[in-house]
């Protein structure tokens, strides 16, 4: 019998080392711990096991799940199941990427630093913004950080928030804003269409407004009238924060071209597996403005030269960061989501200019097809009408819970039950490029049965 152990030293080597130190035994090394806080019993944790048993244990856990491979899922709402090219995992499992540390010693970290630089660049290309950071912890916390950043920048604490921003993002933003006394003003949706009342936003903005936050496409998959919003904000100091889905930007006009000051969001759809919600990566990009840059949270990789004039990359603008600036830092963020950044960079590179447009087109066309078929069913209302990217809000005569139950029995997860967010009723249905026409037709005919 031998349990897993990654310790190299043998008993004999430990003896030699103890004797070099001048200690009797290993316990002696812990003698600085006062008696009264010394743990006098073993942990109540099972004893270790072999690698073989461990793998079996994990497989047993997996078998008690019903994974997306075993049911036809239409869940989205901020976490999207796109096809992940095989190369991503092969490359990211290069130990040089996944077992390395934050690139503090730039000379032995050029791989990470250049990858971050390329990620930053591709995020800028996609969002139309001037500067991207090296990721934040997820889409939700990125929205929180964006709000704090806008508040710091404008020295104001009022934020106008569209109620069509993902409920979880709004909740995280409030958590982030709370200790800074950010005053959130949430603007309602239209009654007929799942978009915010832009006029009400415009009315709510005043000179003290640090930021307006809208989502694009919004939580319900619909396109807000950002053009109008930007026209109204253009001459104000209020920062326009656009929470954008990066896959949608394969088709939609980038936030940078629509006047966004800060584009932010969840970059999981770029090459990252659904993973029950994490690890994901928040992206945050800003217009090309040095003053705004100084308020930006998170790491940045910059291109520079070495003493022989060769190009190289370093972490830069570190004086914004906690390890240098401590209590005056722009954020406390330290570890971010670098390996997810690597995956997103590989994904953007592999799909490229044409592929990203193609994925977006798949999403759009297939969603439209499903939505059109469903709209014909009796007892179904598509709240979005024609306004959607790859997600729509469906109301049914029967409750969402009933629909979900009936569909699951028939092998389909029909969408996210909106009632869990406590605001509206119905299902939020997402379609990605992974669906075939056959799946969509099956969804329609199954729902027809369940509705009866």
């Amino acid at each position, binding site marked *: 019998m031998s349990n897993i152990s990654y310790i190299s030293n043998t008993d004999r080597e430990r003896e030699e080392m103890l004797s070099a130190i001048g200690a009797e035994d290993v316990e002696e090394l*812990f003698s600085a711990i006062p008696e009264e*806080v010394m743990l006098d019993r073993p*942990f109540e944790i099972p004893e270790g096991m072999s690698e073989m048993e461990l793998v079996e244990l994990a497989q047993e856990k997996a078998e008690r799940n019903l994974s997306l*491979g075993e049911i036809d899922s239409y869940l989205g709402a901020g976490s999207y199941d796109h096809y992940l090219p095989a190369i991503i995992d092969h490359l990211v499992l290069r130990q040089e990427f*996944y077992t390395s540390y934050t690139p503090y010693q730039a000379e032995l970290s050029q791989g990470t630093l250049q990858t971050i630089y*390329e990620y*930053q660049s591709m995020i800028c290309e996609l969002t139309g913004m001037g500067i991207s950071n090296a990721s934040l*912890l997820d889409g939700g916390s990125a929205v929180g950080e964006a709000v704090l950043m806008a508040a710091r920048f404008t020295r104001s604490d009022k934020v106008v928030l569209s109620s069509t921003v993902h409920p979880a993002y709004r909740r995280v933003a409030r958590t982030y804003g709370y200790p800074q006394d950010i005053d959130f003003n949430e603007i309602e949706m239209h009654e007929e269409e799942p978009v915010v009342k832009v006029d009400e936003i415009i009315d709510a903005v005043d000179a003290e407004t640090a930021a307006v936050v809208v989502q694009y496409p919004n939580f319900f998959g619909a396109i807000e009238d950002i053009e109008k919003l930007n026209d109204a904000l253009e001459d104000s100091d209020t920062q326009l924060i656009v929470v954008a889905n990066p896959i949608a930007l394969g088709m939609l006009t980038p936030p940078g071209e629509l006047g966004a000051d800060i584009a932010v969001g969840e970059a999981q759809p770029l090459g990252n597996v659904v993973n029950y919600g994490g690890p994901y990566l928040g992206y945050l990009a800003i217009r090309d403005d040095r003053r705004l840059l100084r308020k930006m949270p998170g790491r940045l990789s910059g291109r520079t030269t070495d003493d022989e004039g060769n190009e190289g990359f370093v972490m830069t603008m570190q004086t914004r960061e906690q390890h240098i600036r401590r209590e005056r830092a722009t954020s406390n963020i*330290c570890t971010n989501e670098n390996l997810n950044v690597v995956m997103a960079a590989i994904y953007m590179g592999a799909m490229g200019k044409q592929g990203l447009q193609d994925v977006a087109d798949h999403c759009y066309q297939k969603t439209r097809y499903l939505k059109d078929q469903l709209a014909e069913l009796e007892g179904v209302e598509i709240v979005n009408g024609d306004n959607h990217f790859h997600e729509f809000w469906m109301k049914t005569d029967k409750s969402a819970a009933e629909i979900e139950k009936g569909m699951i029995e028939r092998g389909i997860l029909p969408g996210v039950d909106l009632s869990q967010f406590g605001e509206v009723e119905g299902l939020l249905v997402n379609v990605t490029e992974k669906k075939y026409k056959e799946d969509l037709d099956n969804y329609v005919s199954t729902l027809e049965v369940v509705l009866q």
Partner: protein
Amino acid sequence: MKEPLLKDYSTPGRTGYSLPEIEVPEVDPGENLPGWALRDEAPGLPEVSEVDVVRHFTSLSELNYGVDSGIYPLGSCTMKYNPKVNEDIARIPGLTMLHPYQPERHVQGSLSLLYELKQYLAEISGMDEVSLQPASGAHGEYVGLQIILNYLEDNGEGDRNKVIVPDSAHGTNPATATMCGMEVVEIESNDRGMIDLDELEEAADEDVAALMLTNPNTLGIFEKDIREIAEIVHEAGGLLYYDGANMNAVMGYARPGDMNFDVIHYNLHKTFSTPHGGGGPGSGPVAVKEELKPYIPAPVLSKEDDEYYWDSDRPKSLGKVHAFNGNYAVMLKAYAYIRGQGAGGLKRVSENAVLNANYLKQQLIDEFDLPFAADSFHEFVISGRKQKKEHGVTTQNIAKRLLDYNQYAPTIYFPLVVEEAMMTEPTETENKESLDNFADIMKTIAREAEEDPEMVKNAPHEAPVGHLDEAEAARNPDLCWG
């Protein structure tokens, strides 16, 4: 050696992806969406083949140094070997292909795993409840401090606005306090590298909300007076926050809960060997004492009659800090690590981490200054001030010279309380040969600093790039290829 940018491989019309037929009838999106919302121009992403992408990122990887490349003695970072089996487990499709909004009854396997993980983390720290939501150590600090502030406010102590931080603390501690709207009060370490009780007593007034502390601290020294420290803070009405960055030092020997800490965060990517990934993803679970339970982030993973569920009915919760359930896949690896090691294995981890650090320190103290003579735990701090004073060779120079020998450097210039600090943490997964080798190289560099200081000052000589101009990078930021 240098690798071009991916965009330099780009050629118009080249592609490296594949997708099925769309199959469904296609419509012009312009029929349904406003014209302004549709891109005029394709995104300026590279146009490259699969071969290009594979070769590019393979080449980039070769410019990096990982734990599998050799010793990585970054103090406070706990760069230990990352078990391959954990990566396999975190890639089992039945564990990864789960959507965060799936019905709870479909994810009972994973929820039971996470629930067990919570129990282990509570046991290891001696705390009562755990939130898995924070996605990194600093995120955990942020949550932990907010828990404290919400608790205080709820108990009519909302006016407290000071957080005490020792001068040896990680930068995240004061930064977190600021994010939480607190004023930071820094107290000096005493000449033994520990908290000065008198200073603390003075700082701990009626405004104090919390003391943030690491134990063993960033000098690798155990704060022996921890119970007195806790008493002083508690008596003043504040709470104790434990920065779990150094948990690798004391597993099975001492628990923050037993030291009377109220809140602790873990760094699963440090202690439990889920890899650092070049800077994340990490995971920073927070563990709290009984009375703080109501304030932790919602929803809370709970169990009733062998069914696991997310309890959202938490009226006093501070809210959410992550859109979903935190860094789940990182938790899978931490769970695998803990179950593989087991109770006895975790204790052996700390024993060997401490033994390795003490042994390595012993090998180095003839050549380098040791600012504090106290017993070290899993890391120690030596100083290059002698080399700087006598030969003008800085700790930065020494670190760069180490790279020439294909060794990663210790954490340098931290903690701030030590001049020319080299904070060194070999971890338990290095062996004696590896430590001896590192020590020999350090001694060689000490000799080189005497005999050929200019050469050391111009290091690195063998790395993929030479010394990079950081000042220029900050002056004229080039952050995007566009």
